[in-house]
C-alpha cells in the first residue's frame, strides 16, 4: 500500500480554519525574517476522505486484541474495555489543562489519590507515585529512590544491582541509566533464582536487587522471602518488576513478601490500551521509608479536598513533565472500580487457569521449558523441533499468522533457547485456547510434513516475510519523496 506521501497532490486539502481576513497582519511583519523558514515542511497534501481511507486501510493491516487472540508473553494482552475509553474521553477529563488551579480539578485529583491508595493496597505497600510514564520509567524511579536512600545513609559505595538472567532487558538498561552496574544472577534448574549464586554476588557494593515476580518464565519465585532476607541482610533493597502482577493480584502482595519498592504496568495488569507501542503508565509503590524520595508533586488529601504538594526536600525531583499519563490513570481507576476486590482476584485466578490449561494442551507435543504449574504464562523450548526439522521458533510464529493468531513472544527470556513465551490472559475463552493449541499442534505437524511452508510463512498477510537484515543494514527510516 502507498504511503501518504505517495498520495499527496499539490493544493489538495480540507480547510479547518478560516483563511486570512483583510485586516490580518502578515507574519513577516510580526516576526523577524531571520527566524522564518523558507521551505515548508514536506507534509502530505491530501483530502479528508483520503485520510479516512488511508487509516482505515492501515487499521485493517493491524493485528490487535480487538481482532485477534494475542498471547504475547509478558505483555498481558487482555481485553481493553470500551467503557474505559469512553470515560477517559469525557471532556471533564480530556480537556483539562495541567496547570489549571487545583480547585478546578478536584475530581481528577480524587481519582489519582484513590488510585494511589488502591495500588498501595494491591501491592501491600505504603505509598505510591503515579508519575512514571511506563514500566521502564518506573524502574528508573525505583532505582533513584534506592540510590537516594543509600546516599542518605552515606552508602555511596553501593553501586551494584543484582538482576536475574531471566529478567527483561529494561532492568539492566535501567540499572545502567541510573548509574549502576548490573550483576547477573543465575536461574536454577527449576527456573527460580539460584540461591548460591545470589549469595556469592551479594556484598557491601550491593545497592539492591531487581526481581521479577512472577518471573518472566511465568513462575512464582518460591524462595522470595529468603531472597529478600539475604539482600536486606547484605544492606541492599529489593525492587520488584511488577510487569506480571496480573498473576497474583488479590492472592499475594509484594509488600508482604519482602519487596521494598516496585512498579506496576497499568497497560498490562489494568488493561489500558497499548496502542501499537504505548502509552503505558508505570506507578511506583514503596514502603514508608522510601516515601521522602518520591517524585514531586505528591497528592495530599486535606479534609475533603485534594492538593499537590511540591514541598519534599529529599525528593528525587521529577521524572516526567507534569503529573504522569493521567488518561491511563483514569482508565486503570475505572478498571479497578469495575472489578472490585473479588473481580481483581478472579482476574489473577483465571489468567493462571487459562495459562495452565493451554500448557496442558501443548505439553504433550512441545517441550515446556520448566514443566511445572505456571502462573500467567509459560515458556516453550522449541529446540527439539528446530533440531529435527530445521523449523525454528520464528518460523512457527510466522506460520501462526496464517491461522489468524498473533504469535507469542519469541526468543525471550534469553535463557530459554528457541523460546516461545505464551500468556493467554484471563479474558480469553476456552474455545480460543483450544483453537490456538490446535493451530500450534498442526504447525508442529507441518514442520515435519511440509517444512518449507512453515519456513516461508506467513502466506496470507499483506506482505510476505520481511527482510529484517536489510532493514538494519541499509536503514531507510523515513520517506524521502515527500516535500
Amino acid at each position, binding site marked *: 500500500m502507498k504511503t501518504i506521501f505517495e498520495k499527496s497532490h499539490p493544493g489538495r486539502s480540507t*480547510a479547518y*480554519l478560516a483563511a486570512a481576513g483583510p485586516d490580518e497582519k502578515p507574519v513577516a511583519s*510580526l516576526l523577524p525574517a531571520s527566524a522564518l523558514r523558507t521551505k515548508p515542511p514536506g507534509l502530505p497534501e491530501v483530502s479528508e476522505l483520503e485520510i479516512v481511507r488511508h487509516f482505515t486501510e492501515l487499521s485493517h493491516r493491524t493485528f490487535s486484541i480487538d481482532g485477534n487472540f494475542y498471547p504475547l508473553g509478558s505483555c498481558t494482552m487482555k481485553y481493553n474495555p470500551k467503557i474505559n475509553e469512553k470515560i477517559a474521553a469525557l471532556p471533564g477529563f480530556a480537556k483539562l489543562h*495541567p496547570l489549571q488551579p487545583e480547585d478546578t480539578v478536584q475530581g481528577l485529583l480524587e481519582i489519582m489519590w484513590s488510585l494511589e491508595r488502591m495500588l498501595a493496597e494491591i501491592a501491600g505497600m505504603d505509598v505510591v507515585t503515579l508519575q512514571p510514564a511506563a514500566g521502564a520509567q518506573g524502574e528508573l524511579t525505583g532505582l533513584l529512590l534506592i540510590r537516594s536512600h543509600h546516599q542518605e545513609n552515606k552508602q555511596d559505595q553501593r553501586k551494584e544491582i543484582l538482576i536475574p538472567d531471566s529478567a527483561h532487558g529494561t532492568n539492566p538498561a535501567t540499572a545502567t541509566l541510573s548509574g549502576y552496574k548490573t550483576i547477573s544472577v543465575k536461574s536454577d534448574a527449576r527456573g527460580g533464582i539460584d540461591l548460591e549464586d545470589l549469595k556469592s554476588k551479594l556484598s557491601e557494593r550491593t545497592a539492591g536487587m531487581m526481581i521479577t515476580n512472577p518471573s518472566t518464565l511465568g513462575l512464582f519465585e518460591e524462595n522470595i522471602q529468603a531472597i529478600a532476607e539475604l539482600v536486606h541482610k547484605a544492606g541492599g533493597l529489593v525492587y520488584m518488576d511488577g510487569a506480571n502482577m496480573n498473576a497474583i493480584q488479590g492472592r499475594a502482595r509484594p509488600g508482604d513478601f519482602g519487596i521494598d519498592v516496585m512498579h506496576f504496568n497499568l497497560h498490562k495488569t489494568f488493561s489500558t490500551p497499548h496502542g501499537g507501542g504505548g502509552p503505558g503508565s508505570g506507578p511506583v509503590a514503596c514502603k514508608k521509608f522510601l516515601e521522602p524520595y518520591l517524585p514531586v508533586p505528591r497528592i495530599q488529601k486535606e479534609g475533603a479536598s485534594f492538593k499537590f504538594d511540591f514541598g519534599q526536600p529529599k525528593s528525587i525531583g521529577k521524572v516526567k513533565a507534569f503529573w504522569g499519563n493521567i488518561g491511563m490513570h483514569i482508565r486503570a481507576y475505572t478498571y479497578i472500580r469495575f472489578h472490585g476486590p473479588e473481580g481483581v482476584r478472579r482476574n489473577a485466578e483465571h489468567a493462571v487457569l487459562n495459562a495452565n490449561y493451554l500448557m496442558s494442551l501443548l505439553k504433550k507435543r512441545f517441550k515446556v521449558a520448566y514443566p511445572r504449574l505456571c502462573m500467567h504464562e509459560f515458556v516453550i523450548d522449541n529446540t527439539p523441533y528446530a533440531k529435527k526439522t530445521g523449523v525454528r521458533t520464528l518460523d512457527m510464529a510466522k506460520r501462526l499468522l496464517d491461522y489468524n493468531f498473533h504469535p507469542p513472544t519469541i526468543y525471550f527470556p534469553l535463557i530459554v533457547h528457541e523460546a516461545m513465551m505464551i500468556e493467554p490472559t*484471563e479474558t480469553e475463552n476456552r474455545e480460543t485456547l483450544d483453537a490456538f493449541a490446535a493451530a500450534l499442534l498442526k504447525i508442529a505437524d507441518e514442520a515435519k510434513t511440509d517444512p518449507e511452508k512453515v519456513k516461508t510463512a506467513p502466506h496470507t498477510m499483506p506482505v510476505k516475510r520481511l527482510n529484517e537484515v536489510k532493514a538494519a543494514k541499509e536503514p531507510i527510516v523515513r520517506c524521502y519523496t515527500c516535500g
Partner: protein
Amino acid sequence: MDYIQNTPADAADMLKSIGVGSIDDLFASIPEGVRLQRPLEIPPALPEQDLLSHLQSLAARNRTFDAGRCFLGAGAYNHFVPAVVDALFSRGEFLSAYTPYQAEASQGTLQHIFEFQTMICELTGMDVANASHYDGGTALEEAVAMAVDHTERRKVVISGGVNPQYRAVVKSLFKHLGATIIEVAQVRGTTPVATLKEAAQDAACIVMQNPNFLGGIEELAAVSEIAHAAGALSIASVNPVALALLKSPGECGCDIAVGEGQPLGIEMNFGGPWAGFIAAKKEFIRGMPGRIVGETVDAEGKRGFTLTLQAREQHIRREKASSNICTNQALMALRATIYLETLGPGGLRRVAEVCVQRSHELAAKLAKVQGVKIPFQYPFFHEFIAELPHPAQTLARLQEKGFLGGLHLQPVFRDLRDHVLLCCTERNSSADIDAFVAALAEAVK
C-alpha cells in the same frame, strides 16, 4: 464484576485437563505465609451503569473552560482537533495492538510510525526520528544522555528559557549521575547568546528551547555555532506547530531536536498521555533511544516496514542499551500523525499564523489597558509576558469570569514577580480576546 469468559463448568473441565483439583492448587507455589487470606480492601465492584455515573460525577467536579477562554499555555496548548482525528484514532485495531514485533501482522502500525518519523524529520530538518518518547521532558533528557555519551563529557548547559518542567526532569536524572548542570538565565524573554560562550567550554551540549518557555524566539543558529566551536552538541527543544513557520533546528545547525507532540491534535489530558519526539542528524542514529521503524522488502521484493536497528535497544543490548525505554507513546504519535496529515503544510501553517496573529493582537490590546504592561520587547510566537498588579488575585478573578488567564511566573522565575505568561491559539477568536481584555481590565481595577 469482570470480563472473564470461563463459566464454572469451563473452569472445572480445564482444571481436570490441567490435573489439579482447584484454582487454589494453581497457586501452590506461593509460599503459604505470604498468601493473601482476606479480600483486598478496595471499594466494591460497580457494574458499568453505576461506574459510568460515578466517573461522570467525578468528571463534573473538574472545571472545563470554554475553548476560546483559555489563555494558558506554558507547555500545554489548547488547539483545535478536527473530528477526523478522533474518529480514526479510536479504531480498536490501533488502540489494542502491541508494539509491532511481528512486522507482517502489523504493517498498519509500522507504516503510521514510519510516516510519523518522516514528518518529524521534515518539521525539524533532521535525518532520523524515533517512534516517540514519553513526553517532551523525557525526550530532552534522552537527548542530553545522547550528548553525554557521544562527547563523553559530563557538563550540561541549559537555557533558562527551557520549560522548567523539562529542566526539572533533566536535573533529576543527571544530578544522580554526577553531571554538572549549568543554567543560563533568560533575560527579558530570551537567552543572551553571548553568555553561552564561556559556559560551553567542556560541555556535552547546549540545550535551547524555541520558542522558549516565555514564547520568545531564540537565536538557535548562533547557539549551534557556539556549541560546535566548543565541541559540544546543539540540542533544541521545539514546538512542532511553530515549525510550520520557524526555521527548523536542522537549518539552524542543531544536532538533536526534541519536543512535545501534544500541540499536534493531542488533547491536553491534564498533562498526559502526550507524545515526545526525538530527531537527530544521521550520525547519531545508533545512539538514538527507542523504537525506530525502517523500510525493507519482503520475500517477493515488495515494500514493507519493520522495527529496525534493534541492536540499540534494551531487549537486545540490555545493560549496554542506548536507553531503557520499551513502551513509548505510539498511540499518541498516531494522533499527531493523523493531525499532521489531515492539516497538511498549508493547514499547519495556517494554525501557526493564527497563533502569531492572535497573540500579537492580545499583546497590543493589553498594552492599552490601564495597569497592565508588556514589559519586554522580544519576538514571540504565541506566548508573551504581561505585567499586572496582584497577579494571583487577578487570575482568580478572571477564573470567576470563566477565563483561564495565564500562568503566574513568580514561583518559578524569581525575578518575574508580577508577571504572567499568556498564550493565544487559533481557538481564541478576536471576540474572545476582547472579552478577555475587558475582563482583565475589570479585574485589575
